[in-house]
């Protein structure tokens, strides 16, 4: 977290065009309630996510994917973030994510994975560990 910043800022986004949006809204609300500054991006392209992460000076990016294309989209987002000098941003991923892919996703640079059904307090707890606690 940058110095002088009071609250970590998390950009919440859905890469790709898939329409399920309530999970992203629900988790955004839980993190906001936990004291984080939330930028809700909704559906965005990987490039759009990277650009918004720069513009907002985000500390973390929370992605939600319920379509089976996360192995394609996540590395794109990570690559775009690196391209714009935001490789240090924590990437968090929720949605329908298969456990057999967790290791692969972690190698791709995802720091937290929250498959659908993860209790909200567990998500908040994990985000505190990974992104830092809001002051």
């Amino acid at each position: 977290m940058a110095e002088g910043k009071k609250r970590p800022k998390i950009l919440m986004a859905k890469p790709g065009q898939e329409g399920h949006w309530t999970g992203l809204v629900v988790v955004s609300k839980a993190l906001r309630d936990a004291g984080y500054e939330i930028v809700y991006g909704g559906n965005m392209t990987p490039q759009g996510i990277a650009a918004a992460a720069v513009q907002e000076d985000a500390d973390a990016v929370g992605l939600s994917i319920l379509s089976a294309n996360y192995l394609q989209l996540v590395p794109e987002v990570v690559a775009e973030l690196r391209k714009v000098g935001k490789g240090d941003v924590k990437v968090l991923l929720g949605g329908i994510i298969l456990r057999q892919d967790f290791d692969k996703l972690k190698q791709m640079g995802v720091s937290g994975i929250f498959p659908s059904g993860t209790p909200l307090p567990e998500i908040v707890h994990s985000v505190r560990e990974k992104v830092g606690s809001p002051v």
Partner: protein
Amino acid sequence: MEHSSANRPTGQIFSSSGIPVKDVYVPADTAHIDYSKDIGLPGKPPYTRGVYPTMYRGQAWTIRRLSGFNTPEESNKLFREEFALGQTGFSVAPDMSSNIGMDSDDPRVIADVGHSGVPLCSIEDMQTLFDGLPIEKASTYLAEKHGVLTAMYFAMAEQRGLDVSKLRGTTANCMLAWTVLNLANQIPPEAYRRYAVDFVEWCADRAPNWYPASFNSYNARDCGLNAWEELGILFSCPVDYIEEERRRGRVPLDRFVRRFAFNMAAHNDLFEEVAKLRAARRMWTKIIRDRYGIKDPRCSEFRVHLQSSGSTHTTQEPYNNLIRIAYQVLAGVLGGAQSIHANGYDEGVCLPTDQSMLLSIRTEQILALETGVTNTIDPLGGSWYVEKLTTELEERGWRYLKKIEDMGGLAKAIASGWVHNEYKNASIRRAEKITSGELPIVGVNKFRLEEEPYEVPVFRPDPKAPQAQIDRLKQLKATRDNAKVAQALKKLEEVTRRGENVMPATVEAVRAYATLGEIINVQLTVHGEWPFPIYG
């Protein structure tokens, strides 16, 4: 007979939708219900007990599953298998790119081609999808936006020498279901309604055996609305279409509404879901007969397709969903649905595998043939509890409908952002109830295991599929008569701007091999893009 519920040790119990439930129901609870006026016999208005006089004794419900994936070829294979298994209708789920209305070769949707459905870019894809399938013998459901893909389907049928006026099937064509999703490239709700109503008018004339709209509250329910909100918002959609047609006055209302179909969610609270379907039938009769004065009783038959509710299916311990789905399908059968889609138990994990697809069909067949639940019609009719719940849901449903109408109708309520705010708040409330344990989900917030006890076979879309689709589309664009396409699209735009019914020009365009993306672009040029009203 008296019964007091004053000393409940456990406190008030509520239905899934928050209706207070007493510990026992007695005749006094239904004393205000007039049997002949409010309930009556199946096949007779207000159809509370069912739309047909014989119901499942005459014909079982249609087993129908929404399917499609990867490419039209692969989906065609799936349809052939389903047909061989005894499935009596085809349900087409277009993929994400077709839902959005972008062609498979559009760089914005490359990652989504073949996901969550089958890509359908042109009449050529429609030919491939139904190759070798006797569409004249089955009925087809197209889960599409507002008629462009159906225009391709009809044009494909005509090429086979079939008479469109004899084809049976349904087009979703539902502003309510469509706008729930956060999709790019969408026209505003009122423009959506314009195309939807055009399509209904056109079918009234050209395809009288086709259901031109299937009003669908499934997505809304899955966003967290409860059973009576589902009823209210469901009916707000046909009412909005009817009001639009009244303003236009192109088609007599009894023909306009003749073949409206409905699509609802089958949720967890079994008796409430049964009551919901009974209430829905009564409400539709009252809307058609009493509000609009339409006398043809066929118009007030509420024919409904049900789908087990995806939001109740869990990623954890996926086999538990088989049990949930079976109960939800049972609710649909006890409630008198005409057609049912049992989800795959792996709904919360992936698109269905061959095995989960087989199990969904078997779930319905076992219920139909082995359990005896179809032996008599509306077996729960006359239950003091179910009759009381039916009435209660109806009353609350009317109030929710009125709220939406007071905002100027559904299109305006969606455009204002109110509807999505309802979804958002409902989703958040549901999540809070799951966190607090107020909404128990076995294996998730009740009796959750430390480690997931097993893994299920997983379906993964073929990563090579999109390229095959893209290549074929490129080839089509290179070989068709592009001048003819441009001319057809120009004509479509002119017709659209003049406010005429767009369907004849749409059919002409698809016959000329115009693509879905090209036709949607005409709509976006005329109406502009609608920003999704959720900002976090």
